C-alpha cells in the first residue's frame, strides 16, 4: 500500500494502519532498533511501540511523503531510550563504537553541556549533510542513523569495506572541520 493511503488510515484511526505499516516497514524498523540494541526482543518491542507512537502523533503530523523516515525516527529515539535505560551501567558494543566514531566529528569533545540550541545544531548538521555527495551522505547516514555495521553499509552500496571505512573517516573529518570553520561550539 502506498504511504499516502497508510497515513490516511492513521488519520482516520483505522487499526489497519498498524498492520499495513508493519507489513511494509516492520523489517526495516526492527533493523534500525537492532542496530542500536543488538537484541531481537528489544528490537521487536521498539517496533511495536513505534506504531503506537505513530498512532498517537498522526495527526497532527501527516507524513504522507516521508512515512518511513517518520517511523524510523520514532524507532531510533525509542531504541536509544531503551538502550540508555538498559545500559546505564554496562555500555554496549555497537553503540559505543558508533558514538566513539561520532566523537571524531566534534572539534573539542567534553562533558560540558552543548553551547548551541538543538534547532541550530540540527540546522548545522543538515547544512553539512547537504554539502556531501549523494554517495557520501548515504553511507554516512546508513552508518550513523541506521546504525548499520561497516559490513552492512558496504553490502548496501556494493562497495568494499575498506572504501566504506575510508569514506566514513573522511566525512567525519569534514564534519569536524565544518563545525570548526563555522565556529559552532558543541
Amino acid at each position, binding site marked *: 500500500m502506498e504511504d499516502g493511503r497508510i497515513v490516511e488510515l492513521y488519520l482516520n484511526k483505522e487499526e489497519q494502519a498498524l498492520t499495513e505499516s508493519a507489513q511494509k516497514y516492520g523489517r*526495516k524498523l526492527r533493523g534500525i532498533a537492532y542496530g542500536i540494541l543488538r537484541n531481537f526482543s528489544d528490537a521487536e518491542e521498539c517496533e511495536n511501540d513505534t506504531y503506537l507512537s505513530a498512532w498517537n502523533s498522526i495527526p497532527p503530523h501527516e*507524513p504522507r511523503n*516521508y512515512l*518511513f*523516515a*517518520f517511523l*524510523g*525516527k520514532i524507532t*531510533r*529515539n525509542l531504541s*536509544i531510550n531503551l538502550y540508555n535505560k538498559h545500559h546505564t551501567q554496562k555500555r554496549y558494543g555497537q*553503540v559505543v563504537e*558508533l*558514538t*566513539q*566514531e*561520532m*566523537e*571524531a*566529528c*566534534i572539534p573539542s*569533545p*567534553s*562533558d*560540558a*553541556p*552543548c553551547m548551541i540550541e*538543538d534547532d541550530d*545544531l*540540527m540546522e548545522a*548538521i*543538515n547544512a553539512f*549533510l547537504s554539502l556531501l555527495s*549523494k*554517495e557520501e*551522505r*548515504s553511507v554516512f*547516514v*546508513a552508518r*550513523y*542513523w*541506521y546504525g548499520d555495521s561497516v559490513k552492512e553499509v558496504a553490502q*548496501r*552500496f*556494493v562497495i568494499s569495506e*575498506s*572504501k566504506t*571505512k*575510508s569514506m566514513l*573517516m*573522511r566525512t567525519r*573529518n*569534514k564534519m569536524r*572541520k565544518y563545525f570548526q570553520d563555522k565556529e559552532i561550539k*558543541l
Partner: protein
Amino acid sequence: MRGKDLFEKFTNIKEEYIQEVETESERIANSGKQSKGNKIAELRKWTALAACILGLLVIVPFAGDLFIGLNESSSMDSTTTTTTEGLPEPEDGALEESALEESAEESLEEGSSSEFLGMYVDISTFPIYDADVEMELMLEDRAVILETFLDNELESLVYDIFTNSEADEYLCTSTIHDIRVLTEEEVEELASEKAWDLDAYVSDENLEQAAIVLVDVTWEETHGEIGGGTYEYIPEGRYEKYFILGQVEGRDMFEVWGVR
C-alpha cells in the same frame, strides 16, 4: 558534547536524507541485477585483453615508466628510489614474462607488514588539504580528471605524479575516481593477501614514517603510436594502484618508494 550526544541528536536529520539511503540502495540493487546480464560479455572482453597484454609483455622488453604506475596487469614490485618528481624508473626486463611467474610464486609467500605498520602515518593528524585543485586539468599532452577531493598532502603528492608532464612521452587521459590513504587495517590485509614484503622498505630505506595511497584510475590513450614507438601502449582500462610512500629519517618530505 560527546559522541553519544551527537549520535542521539542525529536522529532528527532531514527525512529526505533518511529516505535517500533507501532509494540509493534500491537503485544500486536494481542496477546490479541489470548488470549481471552483461557480465559474461564483460568477462570475454577482459579475457581477450589479458591475452593481448600477455603478448605485449613477451614482445616488449621495456615500457614507459608510467606503465609501471598504471598497468595493473604488471605484477612487478617496483621498489625504487623514486622522488616526487615522477614515477619509479623501471628495472631492466622488469616487464618480461618472468614477472608473471614471480607473481605466482609471490602469492605462495607470506607478506610482512608489522614494521611498516609500526611507522604508519596517523592521517587524522594531517592538516586538511585545502589548496585549489583543478578538477579537470588539461595539459598539452594529457588530461587529468579528478572525481574526488584531495584530503591531505599525501594524496596530493600522488596526484601530482599524474599531472607531471614529460614531453613526447605519452598522451592520455587519466580519470581519477578515488584517491585515498589506506587505513592500517587495510594495509595489513593487503600485505597478507598479496604477500607484499612491506617491511623491506623500512629496513632498506630507513623510513621514519610510511603510508600507502590507493588510486582508482581509468586510463585512456588519446593516440596510437606514442614517442615514435619507443614506448609501449598502455592498455586502456580501470586500475587500482597502490603507491607506497615513506619519509626518510632527517627529511621533511614524503617520497614515493614503490608502486604496486
